[in-house]
């Protein structure tokens, strides 16, 4: 029976839709057609809508006079163009992110190490800090600094004074350094001494490799930099003066002003992100196995060297990638300054798209900036990872 039937048996006919290759191609074609169709439909709708509303697309509006002004770090006026306003917003974003990153890193490092302390009180304070800040929206932290802390500071007339610095509900006022004619020599001296210091470090390292003799390279380098720079500064005749903020009747003129929006955004982003960085630091240090510390001690390294030569290099491998993404988060979260009127890229963009209606162009500029930044950071991270990745046999 089986033998006679074998002749009539043919394998089941293969339908094209059961062939994995054909199927995959078909799915992809359908997807591409759908996506292209969707984009075309949306573009078509958008152009029709824009035409109906009388909005000319394109970036020509960047050259037009803006007609509004915002407090920025660049000197903008209401005569500035839209393009210049956006540039000023971009600069503000970068400045506030930069300082918030510094605060967050230092605070996060301290709190992260404190969370691993053997001292119960220190550990508990650090844990409370982290658990408190991590579970609150960043926007709330920003509003809290702006509306509850900075706004509650004394008014200008009885501001906290520390030398020529003053802190009030109008922000921080501080002296502005004015560089004299010969200041460039001090700067050159600084650069040259830096080069010399690095030379000393290289030489010391080479000598240690060759002979095993150590040399206090860091302290020597620091001394060289300080002495040379200071000498140049004094020889050229102290070319640095300060413009001290002077109280006028209602305001303070001169000097440098950090507006309350800037101060609160910077502090809020700093303390908020510090709670995340603290966790990253803690997990990074905990990721270094205890055997490493023990082995380092066994070969006779003292405490600080164990940390510097054995623990930190291994911990940094774990810490740096998430740290970089926290830095990126700070930059992105600085857009929340919009809520308190800090003129960052998004806030300026918001002011630009309202009168002009160029929403697509403005959103495109935002995306270009933030995407560009994330691509740069992730590229730098890949390079870094490749450099420090474990070299396995």
């Amino acid at each position: 029976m089986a033998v006679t039937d074998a002749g009539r048996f043919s394998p089941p006919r293969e339908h094209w839709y059961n062939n994995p290759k054909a199927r995959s191609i078909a799915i992809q074609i359908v997807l591409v057609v759908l996506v292209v169709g969707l984009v075309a439909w949306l573009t078509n709708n958008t152009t029709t809508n824009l035409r109906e509303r009388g909005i000319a697309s394109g970036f020509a509006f960047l050259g037009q006079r803006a007609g509004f002004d915002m407090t920025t770090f660049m000197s903008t006026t209401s005569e500035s163009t839209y393009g210049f306003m956006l540039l000023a917003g971009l600069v503000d974003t970068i400045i506030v992110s930069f300082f918030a990153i510094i605060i967050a890193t230092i605070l996060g490092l301290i709190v992260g190490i404190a969370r691993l302390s053997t001292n119960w009180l220190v550990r508990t304070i650090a844990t409370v800090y982290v658990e408190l800040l991590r579970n609150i929206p960043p926007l709330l932290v920003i509003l809290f600094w702006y509306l509850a802390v900075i706004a509650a500071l004394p008014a200008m007339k009885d501001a906290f004074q520390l030398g020529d610095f003053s802190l009030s509900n109008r922000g921080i006022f501080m002296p502005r350094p004015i560089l004299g004619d010969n200041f460039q020599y001090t700067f050159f001296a600084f650069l040259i001494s830096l080069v010399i210091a690095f030379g000393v470090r290289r030489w010391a390292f080479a000598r240690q490799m060759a002979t095993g003799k150590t040399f206090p390279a860091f302290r020597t380098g620091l001394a060289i930099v300080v002495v040379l720079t200071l000498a140049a500064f004094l020889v050229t005749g102290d070319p640095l003066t300060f413009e001290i903020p002077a109280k006028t009747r209602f305001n303070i003129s001169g000097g440098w002003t950090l507006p309350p929006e800037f101060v609160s955004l910077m502090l809020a982003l700093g303390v908020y992100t510090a709670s995340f960085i603290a966790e990253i630091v803690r997990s990074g240090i905990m990721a270094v196995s205890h055997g490493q510390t023990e082995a380092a001690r066994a070969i006779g390294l003292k405490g600080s060297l164990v940390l510097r030569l054995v623990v930190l290099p291994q911990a940094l491998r774990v810490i740096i990638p998430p740290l970089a993404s926290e830095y990126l988060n700070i930059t992105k979260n600085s857009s929340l300054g919009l809520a308190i009127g800090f003129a960052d890229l998004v806030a300026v963009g918001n002011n630009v798209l309202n009168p002009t209606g160029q929403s697509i162009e403005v959103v495109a500029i935002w995306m270009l900036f933030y995407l560009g930044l994330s691509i740069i950071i992730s590229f730098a991270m890949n390079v870094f990872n490749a450099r420090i990745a474990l070299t396995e046999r």
Partner: protein
Amino acid sequence: MSDIQSQTDVYFIRREIVPASPPPMRVHGPIPWMRANLFGNIGDTILTLVGLTVALLVLIPLVQWAFIHATWDAPNREACAANTVGACWAFVKANFGQFMYGRYPDPERWRVNLFFVLMAAGIVPMAIPSVPFKGFNLLYIFVIFPVVSGFLLLGGLFGLTPVETAVWGGLFLTLVVSYVGMALSLPFGILLALGRRSAMPAVRMVCVFLIEVCRGVPLITVLFMAGILLPLFFPTGVSFDKLARALFGVSLFASCYMAEVIRGGLQAVPKGQYEGAKALGLGYWAMMRLIVLPQAIKIVIPGIVNTFIGLFKDTSLVYIISIFELLSTVRNSFTDPTWATSTTAASGLVFAAAVFWIFCFGMSQYSQFTERRLSTGHKR
């Protein structure tokens, strides 16, 4: 041998008992604990003192502000305005209804309360591992509850008065936005993650593009896009509810973050599992549904909950397209002339922070609990 013996001929035998050493220091009780944890050595003691100073410097004024000097009951701003050193809880009390329900009409608020109850009825049994009927529970969470509460909250059917979304607000709206975001981000995140790991280049490219663009920009810009550009993208006459636009933006953003979390789980499932499933003759979807995804999702539950926490915190940004969730409701009430004082803002913000904190801290504790529960088998 004998040489050694002769050398050790002179020996010494102790005749009296060695005096007993003092008993070991107590290792239990408060004093040894303090010695070990607070005053171990000089450095430790200094750290303890510094810590104590910092803690007291923060705690004492805080307790004074929040409890001792606070104004608990007042009909209007006068008592609060006179009291500049304490919190104005009377303000929170007076606006409590608004903070919870927004401008949802007073007689209809039972519907919101019912919504809270229905929500808890879905989430609590899901969160407790020993409660049975997880399959039905999932159906309830993803289908039954959203549909029922949609009808319940919007009204217009079954004799319920219609309530437009423009008057929704407060904690209620925060929960709606985050619930929809969570419920949508999970399936779409899974789809995007599968797409990103697909062997088909076109599918992969579309998914990578979407994920990377969303993750690369701040949520504010995504919301701006949903709020301002969405109406431009559709033919004239098609208009979306503002809330729907916010939900679209939040869900899209959360899905992209979720996709990366799920992808981490998919990558952590050993290749043998995929090959084993294929060897059994399972197709792609059966393999994913029965073999890979259950394992992958189990691995990344902490990551999923972290994304949920982030999403819950991010709902505070929908104010950009004038949706009044908890934080913006609180913020709007600062300008209410009945209550505007110098401590109003701080009191309101502390209240909002406490509400956000309870939800987020609860979620993070739950995530740690799950992590512990699932990791028992692999502990070394």
